[in-house]
C-alpha cells in the first residue's frame, strides 16, 4: 500500500508551471507587457505590416492581383531615370515648403489676432475653422469651379472690372496650376495651424506679459522673448503635422488636376496612386511611396531637433 503511494506520479512539475504562469499573470513588469499587447498588435497589424509590405512590394514587379517576383532595385533604377518621377519630387517639395511656410506665417498671425480681446470672439474662432471642417473633396470641387478655364468666378469678376481681357488659365499652365493648388492647400490648412497655436497661446501666463510691459518691453519684444519661446513646443508639433499632411496630400490634387497639366502638379502621392492602382504597377507605385519615407523622416527630425533643442524643455536649465 505504502509502495503504491510512493510510485504514483508526482504532480509537482505541473504545479510549478502553473505557478510560473500565475506569476507572469500578476508580475508587475509583465502586467505592463500584457496591457501593451493589444495596442502593439493593432500597431503591428495596421501600421508596421502595411508599411513593411509596401517596402517589400517596391522590390518586386507585383501587379494588381498578381504577386510579383523579386527584382531588387529595378523599380528604383527605372524611377531614377524617369522625368515624371523627378518632376513629382520637385512638385512635392515645392508644394510642401511653400504651403507649409505660408500656413505657418498666416496661421500664427491669425492665432495672435484671435488671442486678442475681439468682439464676437467665439464666433470668429468657429468661423476660422470652417475650411478645416469641410470635407477636402467638397472644398476641392469648389476650387475646381473657382479655377475653371471657362467659368471661373475670379476670371469673370476681373473681366467685368475690365482688368483682364481673357480668362485666367488657372489649371492649364504649369506654374499657374502649381500656385493654384498650393493656394487651395493653404486655404484648407490654415485653420489647423491657427487653432492649435491659439490653444498654445492661451497657456502663456498673462503675468509674464504684465511683467514685461512694466519693464517697458515693446510689442515685438513681448512676442520675441515671451510668446515665441513658450510656443516653440507647440510649433514643433503643429509644423511636423502640417508638413506631413502637406507632403502626403492627395485628394486636393486628384480632384483639381489629376496631376495635370502634363504632370506639372503630380505629387509623389498622386503619381504613386496612378502607377500602382490605375495602371496596375503595384511594385513601381510602392517604390514611389517608399521614396517618400526618407523625406518624411527628414521633416520629422528637423522639426523635432530644430525646434525642441532647448534644454529647459527636458527639465534642465537653459543655456
Amino acid at each position: 500500500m505504502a509502495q503504491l503511494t510512493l510510485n504514483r506520479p508526482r504532480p509537482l512539475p505541473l504545479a510549478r508551471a502553473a505557478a510560473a504562469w500565475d506569476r507572469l499573470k500578476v508580475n508587475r513588469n509583465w502586467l505592463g507587457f500584457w496591457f501593451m499587447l493589444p495596442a502593439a498588435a493593432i500597431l503591428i497589424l495596421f501600421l508596421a505590416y502595411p508599411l513593411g509590405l509596401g517596402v517589400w512590394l517596391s522590390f518586386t514587379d507585383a501587379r494588381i492581383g498578381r504577386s510579383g517576383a523579386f527584382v531588387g532595385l529595378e523599380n528604383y533604377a527605372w524611377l531614377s531615370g524617369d522625368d515624371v518621377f523627378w518632376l513629382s519630387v520637385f512638385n512635392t517639395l515645392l508644394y510642401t515648403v511653400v504651403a507649409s511656410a505660408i500656413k505657418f506665417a498666416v496661421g500664427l498671425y491669425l492665432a495672435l489676432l484671435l488671442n486678442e480681446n475681439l468682439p464676437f470672439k467665439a464666433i470668429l474662432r468657429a468661423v476660422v475653422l470652417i475650411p478645416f471642417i469641410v470635407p477636402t473633396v467638397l472644398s476641392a470641387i469648389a476650387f475646381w469651379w473657382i479655377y475653371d478655364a471657362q467659368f471661373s468666378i475670379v476670371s469673370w469678376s476681373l473681366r467685368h472690372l475690365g482688368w483682364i481681357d481673357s480668362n485666367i488659365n488657372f489649371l492649364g499652365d504649369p506654374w499657374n496650376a502649381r500656385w493654384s493648388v498650393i493656394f487651395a492647400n493653404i486655404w484648407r490648412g490654415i485653420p489647423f495651424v491657427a487653432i492649435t497655436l491659439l490653444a498654445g497661446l492661451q497657456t502663456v501666463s498673462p503675468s509674464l506679459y504684465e511683467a514685461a510691459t512694466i519693464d517697458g518691453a515693446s510689442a515685438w519684444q513681448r512676442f520675441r522673448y515671451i510668446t515665441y519661446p513658450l510656443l516653440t513646443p507647440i510649433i514643433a508639433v503643429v509644423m511636423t503635422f502640417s508638413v506631413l499632411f502637406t507632403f502626403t496630400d492627395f485628394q486636393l490634387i486628384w480632384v483639381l488636376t489629376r496631376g495635370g497639366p502634363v504632370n506639372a502638379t503630380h505629387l509623389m502621392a498622386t503619381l504613386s496612386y496612378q502607377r500602382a492602382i490605375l495602371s496596375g504597377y503595384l511594385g513601381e507605385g510602392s517604390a514611389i511611396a517608399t521614396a517618400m519615407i526618407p523625406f518624411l523622416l527628414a521633416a520629422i527630425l528637423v522639426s523635432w531637433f530644430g525646434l525642441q533643442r532647448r534644454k529647459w524643455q527636458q527639465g534642465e536649465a537653459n543655456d
Partner: protein
Amino acid sequence: MTNLTRRTLMQGGTAIAAAGALTGPALLDFAKAWAQSAPWKPESGAQLSMLRWKYFVQSEDDAFVKIMDAFTKATGVPVTIARESYEDVQPKASVAANTGAGQDMFWGLYSLPFLFPEKVLDVSDVADYLGKKYGGWVASAQIYGKGTGGTHWIDIPVCYSGSLMNYRISSMQKAGFKEFPKTTEEFLAYATACKKNGTPGGFALGHASGDANAWAHWCLWAHGGNLVDKNDKVIINSPQTASALEFSKKLYEQMIPGVVSWNDASNNKAFLAGEIHWTDNGISIYVAAKKDPTKQEIAADMNHAYYPIGPAGKPTEFHLMYPLLAMKYTKYPNACKALMAFMLEADQFNAWLQASQGYLTHTLNAYDNNPVWTADPKTTPFRDVAKRTLTAGGLGSVGEKAATAISEFIIVDMFANYCTGRMDVKGAMAEAERQAKRIYRS
C-alpha cells in the same frame, strides 16, 4: 468593404425583385419561352453575381435591371449586380481572377479579359449563336472578343460607347462650311475660321480618360502614327507621329484657352454654356441639352459627325468597348452563358439600346435597324461607331499592355507636352517611347 458591398448588393437584389413587378408581361412571356428553348440550361440552384461599369444614363440601368429580372423569373436564377466606376472594374476583376473568388461575371472596359485570358470562361458557343442569329459581329468586336488572330471568344463584346465630333450648326455655316469637315486639312481650316468668328472649340488635353484618349488616338492614327506595330514593338518615334504632333499644335492654337486643364466633364459644361462650338464627346451633351428647357436652342443647333479622316486615308476613331466576361471559377458556367445570350437577344437588347438613348452602340450587325438610330437623325452617326473604331493598342495586341498605355495617358501626355511647348517634337516622342518600352518589354 467587400462585405458591406455584398450586403448592399443583397438589398439591391431585393429591390430588383420588387422592381420586377413592373416589367411588362410580354417580356416575361418571351423570357419563359426563351428559357425553354435556350441552348444553355442553368445548373440547378444556380445564382449569379455581376460587377458592371456604372451607368451614365439612369434609363439604361433601369432597362438593364428589367432584363436581369426577366431572366430571374424565367430561369429561377437570381442575379445580384454591383456597380463601379468603369475605371475601377479592372482592379477588382484582376484580384478576383487571381484569387479565384468574387463575382461570376465582370463587365468592364476595353480589353479586360485579356489581362487574364486563362482565367476566363470560353464563350465561343454563345458568340457563335448570337453572331449567326443577328447578322454577325463587327470586325472590331471580333478582335475584342477573340484577340488579334485568336480562335475562341473569351468575352462577349456587348457594346461601345461612342465618342464623335459634337458641333454647332450655325457656327459651322458661319465658318463657311455646309457640312462638317471630312478631312483633317478641312478640319483645321474650319477650326481656324471658328476661332476667328469668336466661336472656338476644343479637345480635352488634360487627364480625361475618355475624351482626351479618344481624340489623341484619333489624331495619332489619322496621320499614320502608331504606338506599337503588330508584334507589339514600340514604333511611336516616327515621322508619322511627328506630323500628328505638328497637326495637333496647329489645332491647339485654334482651341479655346484652358483645354490642358480639362477633364471629361469640362467640354460638356463649356459646350452647354455656349463657350465652345466643337468638341469630341459621347451623345451626353445632346441628351442633356434636349432635357434642359433652357438649352433647347443648343439642342436644335447642334449635331454629331464622324472624326475627319487624315493622311492615313481611313477612319481612325477610338471608342470605348465594354466586354462582358465570365470567370472560369464560377460554379454555374451554363447560367453565365445563358445570361449573356439572353441579354443580347433582340427582345431585350433592342429595348436596352433604346433606353440608352444613343450612348451605347451595338456590335451585332442586325441591331443597325434599331429605331433609336433613325428616330432622331442626330443620333445616327453613333450607329456606326462599332464599324469605324480601331481597337485598344492600335496595330498591336489588345490586352494588358495596351490598357496600361491608355491608363498612363502616354499618348495624351505626348500631345500635351508638345502642344503646350513643354517639349519639342523629338523630346515628346522620346518621352512617350521610353514609357511605352517599359510597358511593352517582354
